[in-house]
């Protein structure tokens, strides 16, 4: 018994030692920043540093919520998120169903390989592609407009266009990759169900409705719940690169605002407060989502 305990100690001793550097990383780069949230309640002064700056209670939050920007950036965040939910969320499901109907394996694999590709491109590169096609002077689309005597459109700097561009590029970038999980789920549906349906004379649409969709229902619901819990994460890397002073009215979201106010205007306290507001809502939503997901296909973590 004593020997066994000693043995276990020695065994896990190595394990704890392996764990330690990683835990240290989490402490320094994940937990210490949580302590620095204190800046949200301070009148942060670079010269005095975080802890010497005076506490000001909820003043930063009041400044934000009473300011003119709160409505705009929260509105933009929710609106872009809602558009993505409506258009980007179903896209991979539809693609997976379309691919599933393909009988030629070679064709299917080729389409899959090509549609995954955009997932591996950085948003800077995707923006480069947008410039290639949509730039007012040299973009291909505008050159075509010009050739046909149409007026050029400054797609990239037009606030009326920006949300559509964000959603379209989001679909383009994520649809192929997103379909993978649905395809796997579709492959798990028992083929004998389809055989039986065919014997009963069910049409393709009836098979889709009564067998295919119920077969992937749980995956759809789980991913939907996850998506809803991340409603405030609108895709910072994407929006940040596409944002400019001319279209910012319709596309400035919480995080881009936090960056501008905190890093460019140096209002660290205010920016931290708004970041905290977002983190807390996100936290509550993800807890709720996990509770809901448990009802369907097991928990998220």
């Amino acid at each position: 018994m004593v020997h066994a305990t000693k043995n276990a100690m020695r065994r896990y001793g190595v394990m704890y030692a392996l764990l330690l550097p990683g835990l240290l990383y989490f402490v320094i780069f994940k937990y210490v920043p949580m302590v620095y949230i204190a800046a949200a309640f301070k009148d942060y002064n670079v010269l005095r540093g975080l802890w010497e700056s005076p506490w000001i209670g909820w003043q930063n939050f009041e400044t934000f919520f009473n300011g003119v920007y709160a409505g705009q950036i929260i509105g933009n965040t929710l609106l872009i998120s809602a558009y993505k939910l409506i258009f980007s969320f179903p896209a991979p499901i539809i693609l997976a169903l379309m691919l599933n109907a393909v009988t030629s394996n070679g064709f299917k694999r080729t389409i899959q390989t090509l549609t995954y590709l955009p997932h591996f491109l950085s948003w800077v590169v995707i923006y480069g592609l947008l410039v290639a096609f949509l730039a007012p002077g040299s973009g291909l689309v505008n050159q075509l407009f010009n050739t046909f005597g149409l007026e050029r459109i400054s797609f990239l700097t037009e606030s009326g266009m920006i949300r559509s561009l964000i959603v379209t590029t989001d679909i383009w970038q994520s649809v192929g990759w997103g379909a993978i999980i649905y395809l796997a789920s579709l492959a798990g549906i028992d083929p004998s169900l389809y055989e039986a349906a065919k014997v009963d004379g069910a049409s393709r649409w009836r098979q889709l409705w009564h067998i295919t969709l119920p077969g992937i229902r749980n995956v759809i619901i789980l991913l939907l719940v996850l998506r809803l819990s991340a409603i405030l994460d609108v895709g910072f890397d994407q929006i940040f690169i596409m944002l400019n002073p001319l279209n910012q009215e319709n596309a400035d979201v919480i995080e881009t605002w936090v960056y501008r106010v905190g890093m460019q205007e140096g209002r660290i306290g205010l920016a931290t407060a708004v970041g905290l507001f977002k983190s807390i809502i996100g936290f509550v939503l993800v807890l709720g989502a996990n509770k809901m997901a448990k009802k369907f296909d097991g928990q998220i973590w």
Partner: protein
Amino acid sequence: MEQVTIWNRLGKGLNYTLLTLLAATCVIPFLYVISVSLTPISEVIRKDGLVLIPSHITWTAYEEIMQGGRLFDAYKVTIFRVVVGTLLNMLFTVTMALPLSRKAMPGRSGFLMFVVFTMLFSGGMIPSYLIVKEVGLLNSEWALIIPGLVNAFYLMIVKSFFEQLPEAIDEAARIDGAGEISILVRIILPLSMPVIATIGLFYAVWHWNSYFDALLYINSPENQPVQLFLRQILLASVAISGDAAEAANSVNPVSVQMASVVVTTLPIVAVYPFIQKHFTKGVLVGSVKG
């Protein structure tokens, strides 16, 4: 058994057509970008920018972006963060995943909670910036590696994979007197190659593609990765409206922009066909239990 009606055939044709069109939108932009990057600027102006296939090929745009060594510096930074960053990512992820996969280890659930909580709540951008500044990493290329050393989600994937390995193998090795480290290196890692490869590739692609951390943490131009190099070239020209002649005279003519897109994308596109299948496997490994 199945009736082949006209609707079925039409539906099938439509399906194949739409899929082909979608796939085309994923490829054609690159062909166009490559084409423009190789077009002489004089031709861009003459044809008012409407170039699909250049009449002859010129490398001036590429020569131009090579000038001054900015691209070379940027590539060095990117390659550094991809290679060193990914190696360190894997080292830390694996060394954490191993203990966390030991179900009998005292304190395990507490450590797991500790990690999982960081997936649910974070200090946000500004506090992260403050800590990077505090530890003196600002402006260093290490700021692109150390703050993102372990991705908690990937850690959970690797941990789950380790948990699924048969315990009997490692019990047998232990009875044979093998130490933990040699069990890890000789038994667990070889058995885990699929997940190791996948997660390693995820990290590597993340390193190649990130730009915002560099924007946040790095001011000195010589420590900026290629994504920022490209961003600057693109942004310098977006605000400029007007005609092709103006675009040609601007700081970065369109062919230079497109050449920059090409050099930033080419490595990813070139290795993509070979690594693609590992990624798809990874998505499914991750979805077993995220």
